[in-house]
């Protein structure tokens, strides 16, 4: 019984998310883009997340390198290490790790901010005056996240590669330019394009979920807390689903 109720609750929320997304899309195409506000929001979001993304990505690159070395060494394939690490980072680990960090940091930020606007009736105040809150609250945050997450992923990838280099140097010194050549020699355009494309979708999704959870917030401080929590949890879960979808789509288009 409670499983059924949980399921119907989720379906209801999914329905309202789809409706919400349509309204945001309609607002986006029908109104003049407020680029200054997008960039302002984007700067705020990016600035808040950059440090966390850089440190996390650096550690992941370093650890991945250190952990993979013994296995490759067993097969006498240590020369493949930079290339293998670079491909894993750029195709998969970099985008997903950064998107997860953003789902936490950006998702919670947007979720809490918009939920507190909802709870203090600021969104109602716009509604009741015939001002479309989607135009001033949803679209700028959604577009900011869409623009900023890909940039953060690229910066995160760079931090991971640096981390990987540090991991290499910890065992045996290697010339940086040789490392870079080795790292990128097996990378192809068909690796890069889908990797970047999915980061755009990650960003859009994180912005959309954050604002939607905020808009649906229940009254009171506990409503804000719940909405924040929900935007993070739904955000993280969705990042994995989108990734799964994109991996299959890429394999379908470019062959596995």
């Amino acid at each position, binding site marked *: 019984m409670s499983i059924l109720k949980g399921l119907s609750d989720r379906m209801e929320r999914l329905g309202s998310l789809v409706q919400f997304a349509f309204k945001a899309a309609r607002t986006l195409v029908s109104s003049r883009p407020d680029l200054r506000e997008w960039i302002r929001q984007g700067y705020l979001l990016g600035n808040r997340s950059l440090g966390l993304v850089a440190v996390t990505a650096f550690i992941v690159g370093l650890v991945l390198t250190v952990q993979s070395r013994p296995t490759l060494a067993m097969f006498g394939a240590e020369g493949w290490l930079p290339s293998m690490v670079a491909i894993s980072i750029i195709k998969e680990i970099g985008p997903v790790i950064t998107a997860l960090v953003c789902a936490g940091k950006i998702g919670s930020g947007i979720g809490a901010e918009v939920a507190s606007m909802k709870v203090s009736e600021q969104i109602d*105040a716009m*509604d*009741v*005056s*015939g001002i479309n809150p989607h135009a001033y609250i949803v679209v700028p945050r959604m577009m900011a996240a869409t623009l900023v997450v890909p940039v953060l992923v690229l910066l995160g990838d760079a931090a991971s590669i640096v981390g990987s280099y540090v991991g290499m140097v910890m065992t045996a010194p290697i010339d940086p330019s040789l490392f870079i050549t080795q790292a990128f020699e097996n990378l192809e355009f068909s690796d890069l394009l889908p990797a970047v494309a999915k980061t755009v979708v990650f960003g859009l999704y994180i912005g959309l979920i954050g604002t939607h959870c905020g808009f649906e917030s229940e009254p009171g401080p506990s409503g804000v807390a719940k909405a924040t929590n929900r935007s993070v949890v739904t955000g993280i879960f969705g990042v994995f689903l989108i990734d799964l979808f994109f991996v299959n789509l890429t394999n379908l288009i470019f062959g596995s």
Partner: protein
Amino acid sequence: MSLPTENNDRPDQGPADTATLQMVDGTKGFGGEPVLRDMQLRLNQGETLVILGRSGSGKTVLLKCLVGLMKLDEGSVLIQGQDLGSADSKALNQIRKKLGFLFQGAAIYDSLSVRENLEFHIHRQLQIQDDAEVESLVMKVLQDVGLEEAIGKMPSELSGGMRKRLGLARALVSKPDLMLYDEPTTGLDPVTSQEISRLIRDTQSARGVASLVVTHDMRCAQTTADRIIVLRDGAACAEGTYAELESSSDADIKAFFS
């Protein structure tokens, strides 16, 4: 050939076209608990109607249903003859552009300064972009509510009463045809309260704005009301002018006036 007119079936309520705002058989509840029951309300052109009721009697819910922020379970709301329930979002926004609403909690935009809170509505509700014109509107309304010194402040730097006055300024700045005030004087000192009450009165008389005022403040009711409704058990239990209700024999109503 004579066509029956719509107005004939409600002779007691007068012709429908003079009502700025009307609720017919409004029913609303939360989780089985009824808040409004068959509520009837009619606000005429240029009239100020005061709603009295005890805390939790559903005054805020009533106001929110009247502007479509909450949906009635049953019944209908008409603003200038337009049914809110059947209006599409474009028509609804058109209606709402001519409407001012003071929230009980003021609903100030926390990320914007006092000036920006007002400019936001002038730009978007009135569609005025000319800087000089915007500036003069902002200054005028801030003077009206006595908030000129706070023009550059952020909402976090304002007191409760100042927030309330900013909310009031923001509702008034768009020159609405219909104003709804949810407890405009609560949390203000008696002098300011009286100033705000007079401002409500003056706004109504200067531009013929129809106003609905929810309040517990009897001096405010006395200053502003053309007519008063007392809300009890989700419906209007008494109606009349201030003087009429003051001399009522009902104990509950008397309690408001003592």
